[in-house]
């Protein structure tokens, strides 16, 4: 299997991550070309898939429970069934075909991590509101929400091995490398940035590209003139029956990282299902 998308879900008290992953997988099937629309799911509980109407959108389902919650994502290189993988956060939706970019990554990269994001108005995010640890510790501005890697690459192996070690030893790495500003939690983004920085491969895995264009809907980075707790208090989220998504007055054409998990409900899923069934 040459290329595919890898999604991790974990059990959570209030958020149905499986439903989010399902919506993302549906949107991938709806928009990507055949051969670039494979999806693999890593879950702690395979049985839950029986609640989905079209669980076939997950081409591979791998049961795995050796890490708690999101720490499992640092094992993406070990768990992926694909030769070339893009690991995604599940609270995202694909809005158009990006197969040509998958081809680009396969031809040109062993490892590539997203390093910028956009507002719903298409502006490059410059705010460091959620990224103080990155700015103050001079870390590369990596976003793990879109990570491409080749499975049998030495660069990928070194990178993920170190990232896993960092995640297992957050205090030690924070004390040494994040002394200017310690984040409350050393998450995957910070671990990836530290790993790239220590291995001195930032310029190899996060150089400027026009893709991925991910609309990052964290509320404080939308260039609004006032603080916001929830973006949905201020702009609407409209999914048309044909799968066109608008946020506020803006049609979305990029990958949308909607962040607020309740945006995907049964009505949205039904729209995405109907499109995939008719395809």
């Amino acid at each position: 299997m040459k290329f595919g998308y890898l999604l991790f879900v974990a059990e959570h008290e209030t958020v149905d991550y499986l439903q989010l992953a399902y919506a993302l997988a549906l949107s991938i099937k709806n928009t990507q070309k055949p051969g670039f629309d494979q999806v693999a799911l890593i879950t702690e509980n395979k049985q839950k898939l029986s609640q989905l109407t079209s669980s076939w959108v997950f081409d591979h389902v791998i049961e795995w429970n050796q890490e708690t919650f999101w720490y499992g994502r640092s094992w993406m290189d070990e768990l992926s069934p694909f030769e070339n993988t893009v690991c995604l956060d599940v609270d995202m939706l694909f809005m158009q075909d990006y197969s040509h970019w998958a081809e680009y990554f396969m031809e040109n990269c062993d490892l590539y991590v997203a390093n910028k994001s956009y507002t719903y108005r298409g502006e490059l995010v410059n705010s460091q509101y959620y990224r103080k640890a990155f700015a103050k510790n001079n870390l590369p501005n990596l976003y793990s929400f879109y990570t491409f890697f080749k499975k049998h690459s030495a660069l990928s192996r070194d990178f993920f091995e170190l990232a896993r070690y960092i995640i297992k030893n957050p205090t030690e790495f924070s004390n040494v490398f994040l002394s200017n500003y310690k984040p409350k939690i050393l998450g995957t983004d910070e671990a990836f940035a530290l790993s790239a920085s220590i291995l001195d491969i930032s310029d190899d895995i996060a150089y400027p590209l026009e893709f991925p264009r991910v609309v990052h809907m964290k509320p404080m980075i939308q260039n609004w003139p006032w603080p916001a707790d929830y973006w949905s208090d201020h702009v609407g989220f409209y999914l048309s029956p044909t799968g066109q998504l608008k946020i506020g007055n803006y049609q979305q054409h990029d990958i949308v990282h909607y962040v607020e998990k309740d945006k995907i409900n049964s009505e949205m899923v039904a729209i995405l299902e109907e499109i995939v069934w008719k395809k």
Partner: protein
Amino acid sequence: MTYGILIYAHNNRTVDYALMAVISGGLAKKHLDQPVSLVTDQSTVDWMKGSKIYNRAKNVFDQIIIIEKPHTNNNRVLHDGLTSKVVPFTNVNRCSAWEHTPYTRTLLIDSDFLIFSDRLKEYWDVDQDLLIAESANDLCDISRLGYQDRYISDVGVKLNWATTVMFTKNENTQLFFNLVAYIKDNYQYFADTYRFDVKQYRNDIAFSIAKHILQGFQTSLHGLLPPILTLLDRDILHSVDENRLTVLVSSKLDSNYCLSVLKDIDIHVMNKQSIVRHSDRLLELI
């Protein structure tokens, strides 16, 4: 293809837009080497005749197109340095520029936009049907411009400035101007949808929304003219000397002014009365 510049002017009891249009038109003609036409109304023409500017206008303008003065309830606060007045504001017929223009490629400019360079010349033959000024640049400091000088509303679309609009007369731009007219006629609806303040009709807002809609409800880097260098109405045009404007700029919009000199640069002078005060000197430049 015929090229030309179009200016609208409807006088009111406070502001002599016709005089400003003669100055603005004369400067545009001089620096862009293209004919200029004026769209105005009979009462403004009568005023021009009475104030002895009409002969000058006939020399400056290729055509003086007389239309019905549109009815409007639009009012706005106009500053003249530290003082201000609420004045009527007749700006609702800019959406008719497609219909009124005698040219196939038109540069539509505001009467308070003074052209001192040939910078806009390079856009006549750009292969785009419609171009609008991308934004406004404050002469003093970006911090003086408010959020609503950059976006139509807090969460809405980016504000382009209809101070300069260039268009080719064809079906595409007819659709655009029809849409601007539709937005004007349904301003409350669009205010609700785009969350902007409805109290005063702004061409900048209607043009920005129309552009946003026609480019697929998204931001585009196409169809943009250079940002408008702007002298706010709290600032004062102090003197005019050769091609040099000396202006007083208040960085904090208070009574502390700083002297600044402009040369060979296009400028949007929002303090209209200060243009009128220096009209004799400005008319000498055209």
